[in-house]
């Protein structure tokens, strides 16, 4: 591989000041599953790699019990999220997504922060976190700021980070009671593939367990950035959730998507698949919400 110097700061401030010293010649690296591939392919040629892996921070997702917010640190690996009992029990949409990223070997090192900053339209980590209304916390020379994760994605490979800024964590607000959620990546093969589509659905129900109090529907690979299908969400609120209403929402979501004919599939087929998968994930979310309510784990 091309020569570079590897720097291992222990704090965010140290990382940022290293970045300021080396500027364009430096590149941050977390798990490296993207950066190292690009260096090998000659698409990147940094003289300095500044590792974010040794910055002291939480190494697994955790809940703030006072606010009910879920914190997912940027340097947490996909495998840490996948094996988190908290995520498995209450944020199954996130579990569904990270479980199928790459392979075990990739998930053991690749981080959620690297996944988001990459900002590829197919980033599996992005869809669940925008469906969950996640906020991105960002730290830089000018201090700390926070943006809606949905607005963090600006275009393919482009995200809202100023030079030298570091994504530190994603914060998910408290879930409403009686919430269920699900994600599916649709491709020809489950593991190790560029998906044709990614679909995430979250449903919060009224106490009657069938009326929709809140809906979140997100699509990956359906536009240059991950998107929320806002019209489809609006369609569901206040309605009884069943296969029919979900299919209607799915159709609207298909129209909201900006799919094109591409190597991944032709547009009409992908639009149809949006409708099918929104319905399917909606039914799964409904079932999960009901199951959670039964065992008294309504995500309070």
């Amino acid at each position, binding site marked *: 591989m*091309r020569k570079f110097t590897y720097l291992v700061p222990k704090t965010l401030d140290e990382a940022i000041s290293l970045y300021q010293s080396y500027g364009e010649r430096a590149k941050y690296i977390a798990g490296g599953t993207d950066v190292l591939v690009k260096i090998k392919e000659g698409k990147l040629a940094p003289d300095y790699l500044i590792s974010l892996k040794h910055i002291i921070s939480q190494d697994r997702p955790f809940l703030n019990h006072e606010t009910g917010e879920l914190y997912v640190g940027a340097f947490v690996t996909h495998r840490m999220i996948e094996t988190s009992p908290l995520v498995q029990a209450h944020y199954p949409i996130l579990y569904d997504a990270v479980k199928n990223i790459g392979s075990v070997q*990739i998930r053991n090192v690749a981080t959620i922060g690297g996944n988001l900053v990459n900002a590829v339209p197919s980033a599996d980590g992005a869809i669940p976190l925008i469906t969950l209304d996640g906020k991105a916390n960002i730290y830089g020379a000018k201090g700390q700021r926070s943006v809606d994760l949905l607005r963090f994605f600006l275009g393919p490979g482009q995200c809202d980070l100023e030079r030298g800024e570091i994504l530190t964590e994603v914060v998910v607000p408290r879930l409403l009671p009686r919430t269920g959620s699900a994600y599916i990546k649709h491709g020809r093969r489950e*593991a190790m593939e560029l998906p044709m589509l990614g679909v995430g659905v979250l449903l919060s129900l009224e106490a009657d367990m069938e009326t929709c109090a809140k809906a979140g529907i997100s699509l990956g690979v359906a536009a240059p950035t991950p998107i929320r299908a806002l019209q489809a969400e609006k369609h569901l609120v206040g309605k009884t959730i069943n296969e029919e209403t979900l299919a209607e929402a799915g159709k609207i979501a298909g129209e909201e998507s900006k799919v094109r004919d591409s190597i991944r599939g032709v547009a009409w087929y992908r639009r149809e698949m949006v409708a099918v998968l929104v319905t399917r994930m909606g039914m799964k979310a409904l079932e999960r919400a009901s199951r959670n309510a039964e065992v008294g784990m309504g995500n309070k």
Partner: protein
Amino acid sequence: MSREIAFVFNGNKMNMAIEDHWTLLHLIREELGYTGTKEGCGSGECGACTVIVDGNAVNSCLYLAAEIDGKELMTIEGLASPDGTLHPIQKAFVENGGIQCGFCSPGMIISAKALLDENPNANEEEIKEAIAGNLCRCTGYVQIVDSIKSVSGHEAQEPHVVAFRSEEGDRGD
């Protein structure tokens, strides 16, 4: 730049000087001379380079040697006993036809080892998930899954399946 690192390699403490841009795969094959770990794609796709770092299977082609500092590394050479007795997983691959050309085998066996260390009772689905990042161009995977099944405790509890292994192919658990 070069740096000094200390790590445990297949049970032995090591100190050595490395270059920052070396991958772990380069360290293992070219510097230490252990060629059991293979390079296939060099980009995380094939799993031939799989090794275990602190209990986790990783692709050594996408892992910097500098990151092994202070950690424990296991390669395929660390599995058999010093007297040459094969590890039960290795034996299972030999006995079940889990090896044909053998290029994928070190990575497959290492992935299986990482899985069974963490989950000694892995079922078929868990086995398939654990080796989803390991490509094999020869066997068609059935014999590989069977090999791993035969040494997982899950299988040991159902001995009747072991007896007719080769016919059982995709049998679900």
